[in-house]
């Protein structure tokens, strides 16, 4: 343990510089806000992640946002355990019929004002997991989506870039 602490003095932090907010994401959020105006007081965003039918690839990269390299909490964003504590739902997967009710209930349990971000190609467009007997398709078929972050899976940097754009758009919309 001592050598680990000693190492900490020898090395500089691993945390990466934040990416620029994604301009396309910024425009997308602004369009969504024009249709459904909502106001966020302050900068912080409490995020509830919902896997509605993903392969778990997106979850792994969302997890990585918490590691010291991306350190999402430095931007005032953190993951919460209950939708009742959340401002934002981060939804992955082409929504399965078996998860549809759970997603609807999670959305309903999230207090307004609330935002929904669809993460990954499946959640954004369905892609490989288009509608079939088991899947309803992309997230916007089930709950209204404010921002899409595509990728299979999107990298942590892409995720951050999208979330920072959302945060910026919400703050410039006050």
């Amino acid at each position, binding site marked *: *343990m001592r*050598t*680990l602490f000693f*190492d900490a003095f020898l090395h500089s932090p*691993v945390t990466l510089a934040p990416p620029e907010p994604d301009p396309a994401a910024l425009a997308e959020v602004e369009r969504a806000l024009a249709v459904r105006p909502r106001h966020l007081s302050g900068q912080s965003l409490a995020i509830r*992640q*919902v*896997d*509605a*039918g*993903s*392969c*778990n*690839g*997106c*979850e*792994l*990269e*969302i*997890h*990585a946002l*918490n*590691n*010291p*390299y991306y350190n999402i909490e430095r931007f005032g964003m953190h*993951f919460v*355990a*209950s*939708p009742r504590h959340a401002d934002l739902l981060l939804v992955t*997967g*082409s929504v*399965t*019929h*078996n*998860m*549809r*009710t*759970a997603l609807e209930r*999670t959305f309903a349990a999230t207090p307004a004002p609330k935002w929904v971000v669809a993460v990954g190609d499946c959640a954004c467009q369905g892609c*490989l*997991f288009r509608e*079939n*007997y*088991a*899947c309803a398709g992309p997230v916007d078929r089930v709950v209204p989506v404010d921002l899409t972050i595509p990728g*299979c*899976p999107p*990298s942590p940097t892409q995720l951050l870039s999208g979330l920072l754009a959302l945060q910026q758009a919400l703050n410039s919309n006050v």
Partner: protein
Amino acid sequence: MTETTSLHHTLPALDFLQGLQPVAHHHPWPRFRLDQAAWRDMREALARGTLSLLGLWADREEIHAAVLDHQSALLILSVVVEAGGFPSLSTQVPQAMRLERTIHDLFGHHPQAIPDERPWLDHGRWGVAQPLAEGRRVPVAPVEYPFLPVEGESLHQIPVGPVHAGIIEPGHFRFTASGETVVRLEERLGYLHRGIEQRLEGCDLLQGARLCGRISGDSTVAYALAFARAAEAATQTVPSPRSQALRGIMAEMERLANHFGDIGAICNDAAFAMLQAHFSMLREQILQIAEHCFGHRLLMDRIIPGGVTCGLTPEGSRRLSNWLKTVPNTLSKLVEVYDETPSLRDRMRNTGVLSSELARRFAAGGFVGRASARTFDARRNLPYPPYDRLDFQVPLLDSGDVNARVWIRIEEIRQSIPMLRRLLTMVEEGPLTTPLLAGGGEVREGCAVVESFRGDILLWLRLDSQNRILRCHARDPSWFQWPLLEAVVYGNIVADFPLCNKSFNCSYAGHDL
């Protein structure tokens, strides 16, 4: 000596195979078609422990079982569905139960005398019954799912999920507790059923590889490899040594990334976030190196039937070998903290103990089996390239607790590091892909068993003469680990469930398909 007689030679216990000829065009292991009496004999052998069940699936006409003898010879045994049913194995072989319930949900074949008739993946929300058979349209009506009854004084139930508290996949856990002590856990899964097996029907091999690479995202390399190997077996194709070495590098990188992530997450559940921070950095480093090496952090879509889609970049190769020099030192410092922290020791040891008897009966793969004295690793027991040319140990422990499952991971990391060094020297010149031959009008079948970080994946494939998929079945290691999680939680406190669960780290997506 024919293939059949040599088989009888190695499998003396299997009298019921006498006189049978293997089904044509099935590779690399033989497939036999049994009558119902022989199928029951197989059930006896499974119940006695002479054979272990490695998989059970169906098509429209037949039920297929993959069975393993003395951990060295694999057989596929099939029985024709008669009058809509087949003799259930789960009356004597409980690990077959969820697989049989799934067969009934997807195909409608009735497992005769199955002790549990409840649907498993079908929650009544699909609007079709038996989607992989004729797919009859039925009204959407959520199934009333009675949990198993629990009797006793002062019991209470804790329902958890399908949406869990963390960044995790969905599933439902129903705990019954007496005070803080769990007296029963029952799982209900299927929330992530995406109809993958139906999507695979009619696909070409490249589409198939993309879909299989998304059965369980954390094992994308292992699944793509299993699919590729099954397709190569069916078409009798041998990929180049170069692509085999590259596949090995990808598979071991995936193993390292997942083991690092798991160890960190387990420590975090014992309120030791500092180790999670360190292990998550190691995980991030290997993912970044993977991107430099092959252009994708999780290595999706890099393995295809016939080979791989890209070579190893010189920059990636340099980064990987440099990282491999520093990581043993970092790891040993972290392991020292893990092993010498009393609060961790207190939480990890004697928690969630899985008996070696249960591990053996359920043929539990991966760290779950190997922490409970079941010595099976597909890389060694059913060797495939490049592992047939590598020297490595398969770590084994017998205490079966959370701590043992962590230690198996640590030791596997320590095996993978020199393996990766060796594999880097094995990347020679050669083609990345080898074309797969189409058949001469006949249907061909292939099977593959691949060791993912979580345990052995079994993938079975039937191709038409144009190499289109007629039927593809993938059995995730979690099928035989999920039921054991129910067993190990018994008698532990509720607060230790996350530790037990993380130490198993079963896949939801891989199981639900």
